């Protein structure tokens, strides 16, 4: 079992833990995320068909539609959002959904930016714990990668 600690920038602070779902491809939530069930549905995206609900989603940034924020907000309200999202920079679209969820439902979604070199170390199936200060503790079981 490997353990790795990454220092991230919590642009919306919060704590979360769960299994990672990782892609180097940016994602549009509009047309890319079914907020009713929490599935990634962009058929051109490597994570197409994966359930992100309850996971720690890692995508570098959002692409495409400006409706991404609205879709993420719906999923936060519906309980189908990822537990947290890791990006490579402060993503305005994700951040706004989290700020509005805080405003309307007092339920912000933790968002953390990490340097690209650290992002590249993340793998689907890693167990990730995030704290309020943006410290990411990543645990990898050698067999876990293929379980997804």
């Amino acid at each position: 079992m490997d353990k790795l600690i990454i220092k991230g920038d919590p642009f919306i602070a919060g704590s979360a833990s769960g299994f990672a779902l990782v892609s180097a491809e940016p994602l549009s939530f509009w047309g890319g995320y079914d907020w009713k069930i929490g599935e990634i549905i962009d058929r051109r995206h490597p994570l197409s068909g994966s359930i992100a609900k309850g996971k720690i989603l890692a995508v570098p940034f959002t692409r495409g539609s400006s409706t991404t924020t609205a879709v993420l907000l719906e999923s936060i309200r519906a309980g189908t959002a990822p537990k947290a999202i890791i990006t490579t920079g402060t993503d305005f679209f994700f951040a706004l959904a989290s700020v509005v969820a805080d405003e309307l439902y007092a339920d912000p979604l933790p968002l953390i930016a990490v340097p690209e070199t650290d992002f590249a170390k993340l793998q689907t199936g890693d167990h990730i714990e995030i704290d309020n200060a943006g410290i990411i503790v990543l645990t990898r079981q050698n067999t876990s990668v293929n379980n997804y």
Partner: protein
Amino acid sequence: MTLTLNEKDHAMLRGDNGPATKMAMSILVRMAEITGAKELLDITGAHIDSTVYIGDAGLEFAEKLAGLGAKVSVPTTLNVSGLDEHHWHEWAVPSEWARQAHRQMIAYQSMGTIPTWTCAPYQTEMKPSFGQQIAWGESNAIVFANSVLGARTERYPDLFDVCCAITGRAPAIGLHLIENRAGSLLLQLMDIPEALQLSDDLYPVLGHLMGKVALERIPVISGMNAVPTEDQLKALGAASASSGAVALFHMVGVTPEAPTLKSAFQGKLPRETIKITMGMLRESRRELTHTDSEKLDIVVLGSPHFSLAEFKQLAPLVAGKQKHPDVKFLVTSSRAMTQLAEKAGFLESLQTFGAQLTVDTCILTSPMLPQELKYLMTNSAKFAYYAPGLLGRQITFGSLKDCVESAVEGNVIRDETLWTS
């Protein structure tokens, strides 16, 4: 680096201008802090994309603001809604969904906005001017306003556009600031035949490729021999804002901030150059088709919304013809543009052809397509990009002429001439 607010900002944040302005300002300030803005700046126009009905949360947000008495403080256009109030009964829109989408329309209309209900506000009289500071939502509108008109907006998401419209302020970040508008990636067109450059067919395909390679960078296109039309630039931008996150591109000798290659990069050197070959364009065109089948249930045109010039182009293509009885033919546009097209006499041949019109929304923002319509065809890269995931449908990408001929034949026909030479 901290955010400094002026006296008016503080007043809005305190609630001096009412509770809706206070809520909008508090969201704006939190976002400005997150993005590291040093200050806010005045905007003189807004375009609200939050009108698109997604679900309860977006509706609750709109009705909360409206209920608190929100009013916009700058001229503000509205993006597509989730509902064609005139024609939704002809389609598969569930009545409960229609009721909710209608509530969302009412909420945004109550804020003193201009009910344009279009994703192409830059083709209305509300078109922004060069250098104008605006806060726009809708990815295709953002890239057009920045690139083709030289107006200045960041790539704003839904729910934020309305906060800017209410307060008349936006964070002084990103593309609002001239120094952030320099190109960062050079796309050099290599021996792209002039016939293709003069044709509409190039632009959605080039845009799809541009979005994929540029992602969130600012691409500069060089090597154009033709001057594209407004609708060709619209197709280019919309495609790149779907496959990527392009909010601004420059085209040397065509767009206003790029009279020369040097000015497009503000005197700096490109950090990366990519040569765009016919091979890459063919691959991009192939990616926009998401099926091997030649089956066809419906042709969908008008993403972004059809312009008057596009109606004018379509009318003679369908004149004297009739679509196959088993195929539907749908054009989406705004009600204002449709009325102009009617006055200009462009709709008669469409009606005889058997085309249907939907206004104020589109197939991506309204659940209008019945289940049995499985095979789609379009000339829009944006429809082609989103249809498989958002609608779970198969889609074929072709030219406008291909779309008309396929609708007549009842199955997919594509003219490969421009792509094989």
